[in-house]
């Protein structure tokens, strides 16, 4: 069970959260100009590191807000992302 720090509510059990995968994957600026390979990349390709991973969580059973953390996928150690509270 992970202990996750919601920036608004504090430390809570993992069961209160919903996982959102990799953070900072922005919707493309000009999707109509993209070829199939780039579009497939946007839809399907995500980093999968063993180590530090910037990822999104939503506090679904609490304040329902999204936020980012940096988690080590080998040890599960979690650090708040320093670059601001609000997810893009």
């Amino acid at each position, binding site marked *: *069970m*992970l202990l996750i720090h919601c920036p608004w509510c504090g430390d809570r*059990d*993992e*069961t209160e959260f*919903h*996982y959102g*995968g990799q953070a900072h994957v922005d919707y493309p600026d000009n999707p109509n100009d993209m070829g*199939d*390979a780039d579009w*497939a*990349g946007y*839809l*399907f*390709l*995500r980093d*999968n*590191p*063993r180590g530090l*991973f910037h*990822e999104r969580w939503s506090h679904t059973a609490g304040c329902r807000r999204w936020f980012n953390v940096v*988690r080590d*996928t*080998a*040890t*599960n150690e979690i650090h708040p992302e320093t670059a601001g509270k609000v997810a893009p």
Partner: protein
Amino acid sequence: MAPLPVQPQPPPRLWRSPEPKRHYEVVIVGSGGHGLATAYYLARNHGIRDVAVLERGWLAGGNMARNTTIIRSNYLFDESAALYNHALDLWEQLPAELEYDFLFSQRGVLNLAHTEQEVRDSRRRVFANQLNGVDAEWVEPAEIAELCPILNLSEDIRYPVLGATLQRRGGIAKHDHVAWAFARKADEMGVDLIQGCEVTGFETDGDRVTGVQTSLGPIGAGRVALAAAGRTTLLTDTLGLRLPLQSHPLQALVSELLEPIHPCVVMSNHVHVYCSQAHKGELVLGAGIDTYNGYGQRGSVHVIERQMAAALELFPIFAQAHVIRTWAGTVDVTPDASPIIGPTPYENLFLNCGWGTGGFKATPGVGWVYAHTIATGRPHPLNEPYGLDRFTTGALIDEHGAAAVAH
């Protein structure tokens, strides 16, 4: 109930432990069931024996020995039915062919339906299976009661059992013995099985891979075939090759040893638990992946709690059983819940990955088609639809839920 079967006694020595040579015609990365079956069929079907299987840990110490050993081929889509049924055909002949009794037990697999929608989806899958030559039946609660008397068929539970699909040819096998059986025969045919040898990167020359870097030094290779399951992207990342894979913990657990009480395999997608009784007597239970990415080979306790709660409602008789062990593997999951088997942008580098929660049942089938792909440089007709390009063309094989278990 039938008496407990006698455990097969492995021969005292199953394979050599050779020093790696400096060059091989084919290097396979990973000695799980897939890597070993691939080596076996490379030698047996294609006469390619200058092969090394490199393993970072010990042989079959990855997901091969962590899975819940369920074998079935009742997948919805044509491409999946063909691949998994090919594997099932091979499973049936392998104990004799490998001269090793790995306790393949075709005790039948029930996939329960708990809602009206699930009844419709399940019946559709039965029809699809029958059209594809896969044995499948729809069974009503009265017949389920005869097949699996310990199931709770009361109408008063939260998710009553409304019916089930039944694949009689499905069942379980002793997973580590399967690996050892393939390993012994591959070794006999000259394949070098090298444990404690981690592949850390590749040597390349333009669009060719010329070898692998390992913890035991560089090893040259005519062709390199990945069978590294959850750690695949750690290797492809070193080439700048991005794959649609996310690695997740997948947990399972076993009870203490019990008398034979659980005659078949029972799976429930809706309450999400699956259960069988191992030959030795443990109840073996699994459920879904933990949601987050992870390489820690451990998952969260609440996932196990939910799976046990679901199991208890379906099997009230389990209430007194003790949990003896829980563990997790690292499984690589694709966006369409189907594997990737085929070539890469590097002419002589091949991929077998993305099996997620369900690749054990495919072991002989994937070994067969992957060996063909490596030997000939082109996919076998059975793995042609499983290329990496499907994520660009959109020709996905979307088995989420359709394959009778949520991924």
